[in-house]
C-alpha cells in the first residue's frame, strides 16, 4: 500500500490530460509542502558545521574547520565524538534498550496475536480494547506511576526498569502488526504440513514462522523505533542516570542557543534510528508506507472496513 501504489497504473496511464490530471494550483501547493518539510533540516545540518553563528548573521561567520584549533575545548562534531559529550554511552543505551524492547515485545505479542487472529472467543473485543489502551492513556500518568512502582521494586535507574517501561508504548503496535500478519496468513500451508504428518512444533517452526518472519521483523522494527524515540518514560525511570539519545537532546535543547552547533549535530544523530527504520522497512516489506501501521493500534476501536 503505497501513496497510490495501487493506483500507480491508473496514474501512469492518465499522466497529462487524462482522467486524473492534477491541477496546476495543486502542484504548486505540493511543492510548497515539499519546501516546508524539507527545508527545516537544512539550517540544522549547516549549523552542525558552524563555529560561530550568532545574531544577526544569516549564514555562519566562521566554520568549524577553520576555527577549531583556536578553542581549548572540543567543539561541534569534535565535541560530540569526544568522550566529553558521552554520546557513545547514550547511543549504546538507546540501541541496547531498543533491541531488548523489540525482542521482548515481539516474543510477548507473537502468541497473543496468533490467538487473536485465529480464534473467536468471548471477551476478544475486550482484550483488543485493553491492548490498545496504552496508546490512548496519557504517558505522563503511566510514567510517573511506573516510577513510583519501580521505586518499590528497586527498578529505578536500571536498564531493566527502562526496558520494562518501554514495553507499554510498544506492545500495542507489535500486537496489531502481528495480528494483521496472522490474519493474512494462509492456513492452507499449515494444514498441508499437518496432513503430511508434521508435529505441532515442527509446523510452527518450519511452516508458520518463515511465513510470518517479515511481519515479525516489521513489528520488531516498530518497537525499536518507538523505544528509540521515547523521552518521558526514559527520563522518569532512569532518574537521569541512563542517558539515551532523546534525553540527551532534551537537555541540549533546554540550554542551547538556536542554531547551536552541538545541538544541531545531535539532531542529525538522533534522527539516525528513524532513517535506518525507513531504509530497513523498505527493504524488508517492500511496502513503502508500512509506516501507516502507526495508526494500527486504534483501528479496532474505530472499526471501519480495511
Amino acid at each position, binding site marked *: 500500500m503505497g501513496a497510490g501504489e495501487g493506483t500507480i497504473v491508473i496514474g501512469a496511464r492518465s499522466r497529462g490530460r487524462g482522467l486524473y490530471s492534477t491541477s496546476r494550483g495543486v502542484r504548486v501547493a505540493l511543492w510548497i509542502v515539499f519546501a516546508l518539510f524539507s527545508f527545516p533540516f537544512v539550517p540544522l545540518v549547516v549549523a552542525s558545521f558552524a563555529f560561530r553563528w550568532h*545574531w544577526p548573521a544569516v549564514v555562519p561567520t566562521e566554520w568549524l574547520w577553520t576555527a577549531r584549533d583556536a*578553542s581549548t575545548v*572540543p567543539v561541534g562534531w569534535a565535541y560530540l565524538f*569526544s568522550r*566529553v559529550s558521552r554520546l557513545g554511552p547514550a547511543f549504546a543505551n538507546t540501541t541496547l534498550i531498543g533491541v531488548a524492547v523489540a525482542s521482548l515485545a515481539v516474543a510477548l505479542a507473537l502468541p497473543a496475536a496468533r490467538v487473536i487472529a485465529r480464534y473467536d472467543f468471548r471477551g476478544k473485543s475486550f482484550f483488543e480494547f485493553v491492548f490498545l489502551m496504552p496508546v490512548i492513556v496519557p504517558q505522563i500518568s503511566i510514567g510517573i506511576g511506573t516510577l513510583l512502582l519501580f*521505586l518499590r521494586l*528497586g527498578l529505578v535507574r536500571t536498564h531493566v526498569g527502562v526496558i520494562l517501561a518501554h514495553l507499554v508504548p510498544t506492545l500495542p503496535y507489535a500486537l496489531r502488526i502481528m495480528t494483521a500478519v496472522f490474519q493474512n496468513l494462509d492456513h492452507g500451508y499449515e494444514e498441508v504440513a499437518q496432513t503430511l504428518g508434521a508435529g505441532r512444533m515442527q509446523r510452527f517452526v518450519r511452516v508458520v514462522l518463515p511465513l510470518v518472519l517479515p511481519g515479525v521483523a516489521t513489528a520488531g522494527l516498530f518497537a525499536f523505533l518507538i523505544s528509540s524515540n521515547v523521552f518521558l518514560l526514559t527520563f522518569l525511570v532512569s532518574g537521569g542516570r541512563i542517558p539515551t539519545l532523546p534525553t540527551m537532546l532534551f537537555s541540549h535543547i533546554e540550554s*542551547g542557543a538556536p542554531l*547551536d552547533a552541538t545541538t544541531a549535530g545531535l539532531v542529525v544523530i538522533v534522527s539516525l534510528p528513524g532513517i535506518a527504520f525507513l531504509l530497513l522497512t523498505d527493504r524488508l516489506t517492500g511496502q513503502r508506507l508500512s509506516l501507516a501501521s502507526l495508526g494500527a493500534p486504534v483501528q479496532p476501536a474505530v472499526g471501519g472496513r480495511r
Partner: protein
Amino acid sequence: MRRRVTGRAIAFGALVAIAIVGCDRAADPDAASAFRDRFLAGEVEWDAVVEQARSEGRVEFYHWGGSEALNSWLELIARPAIEAIGIGVDFRRSDTRDVVDLILSEIASGRGPGSGSVDVVWINGENFRTLRMNDALFGAFADRLPSSAYFAFDPDDPASSINRFDFGTPTDLMEMPWAGFQFTLRVDADRVDPAEAPATFAALESWVRANPGRFTYVAPPHYIGSTFIHALLYETNPDSTGYVPFLGDPQDLGVTEFARLIGPGFEYLRRIEPYLLGGGGRSARGAPIYPASAAALQARFVAGEVDFDMEFGVYDVDRDIRSGRYPPTVRNIIFPESGMIKDMSYLAIPRNAPAPAAALVAIDALSTPESHLSKLVEIGFAPAIDLARLDPEERARFLAAAPDLRGVTEEALAMRAVPSVNAGLVDAIDAVWLEYIAEQSARSFDEIVLDAWRNLGL
C-alpha cells in the same frame, strides 16, 4: 560547588533518597573509620595513603555537569592525571544538591564510613553548610595533602580568608579550595558600548526602562539568578552598609531585620518586571521570561534577544570567544559600587566515602600548581592556590598564562571583590523570589518573608 541544573525538570534528589538500592561495595566500617582517624591525626605516611588508594582502585567524583568546559577538562586532562597514579576515576555529572541528598540519605539509612557511593564532590555555599551541619564530612583533611603547601590556610595570612570561610561557613579544612569565581556581567560591544553600559543597579533600571525587553536575569534558585539578586541587595541595602549585614548567621540577623534589608531590592525587582524580556513594557501586560539556567540566558544573549549576559568566572569571556560560543566583541563589565561577588569552590569528601584514600589522592593530584595552571590555561578557571607561595619562575608562568580579561582589569576586579551572602540566607532569598516575583503572590511582602524564614527552620 553550589551550581545546580534547576532547568532540568526533575529534582531527583528526593527520589534518589528513596531509591537507593544497596550498592554492594564490600566495606569494613571499622577499618574505614580507623583509617580516617589515623589520617586526620597525621599518623599515615602519604606513601601509605597512595598505596591504599591503589588498592581501593576507583574514585567516584561527583560534579555539577552544567559547564561543558569543565566537563572537557575533567575528561581530557584530569582523568589521565589521576589514572597516572594508578587509580581509576568515574566523573559523575549531577546536580550538587542531589549529591548532598544522596549522601545524607545514605548516612540516614545506615551506610556509614566506607559504604557510601560518593568519594569526592565539587561543592560550596549552602550545600557545604548542609553537609557540615549534618556531620557528613570526612574531616579536616586539607592541610594534610602534600599539595596543601601551595594554599593559604593560616588565619594570620590575609590571603587565607577566602579559603577559610565558604559563604560565611567556616571550612575548617574540611574542603580543599579548588577554583575561585567572580561574578561579572557581559555585553556585546557591537550592541552596547561597554563604556556607556550601566555601572550601578540604579543605572541599570534606567537603562532597562529606556530599552524595554532587552534585559532579563536567570531565575533563582539557579546560582546565577541568586547571585544577581544578592548583588542587588547589597546596593539597595537601606542602611547603605552594602554586604556587611548579609554575612552573619541568620539567627543573629532575625526575620524582621532580614525583611527590612531585602525589601527595597525586591521592590526594585517588581518595578523592572514589565521592562524585562517578554514583559509588556508600560502596558504591564505579558509575562517576563526568566531563563532557568546560565546556559539558557547565554543562549538568548548570543541570539540577540537580550543585551546582557552574566556568569561567574572572569576568564569565561575569553574562553567562550575562543570556543565560538560568544561573538568576538563580548566584554566583561562590573558594577563598582555594589561590588562584584567573589567566591571559592572546593572539593570535599563525604564521611561515608567508599574509597577515602583514593579521594585524598585524587584531590591532591588536582591541587598541584601544574593542575591549577592547566585549568587556568585550558578553561579559564582562576587558580585557588596562593601565587605568593610559588617560586618566582612558576609565578611568572601563571601570570603569563592568565587569559585576556576582555574589558576589565585585574586591579578593578580585585578592588571590587565582595563576599557572598551567608549560606543560610541563600534559600530564604530564593524562596521569597519564587513567591513574590515568580508567582506574583498577592500576600504582603512581610508575610512571604516570614513564611520563607519559618519553612527553612531559621
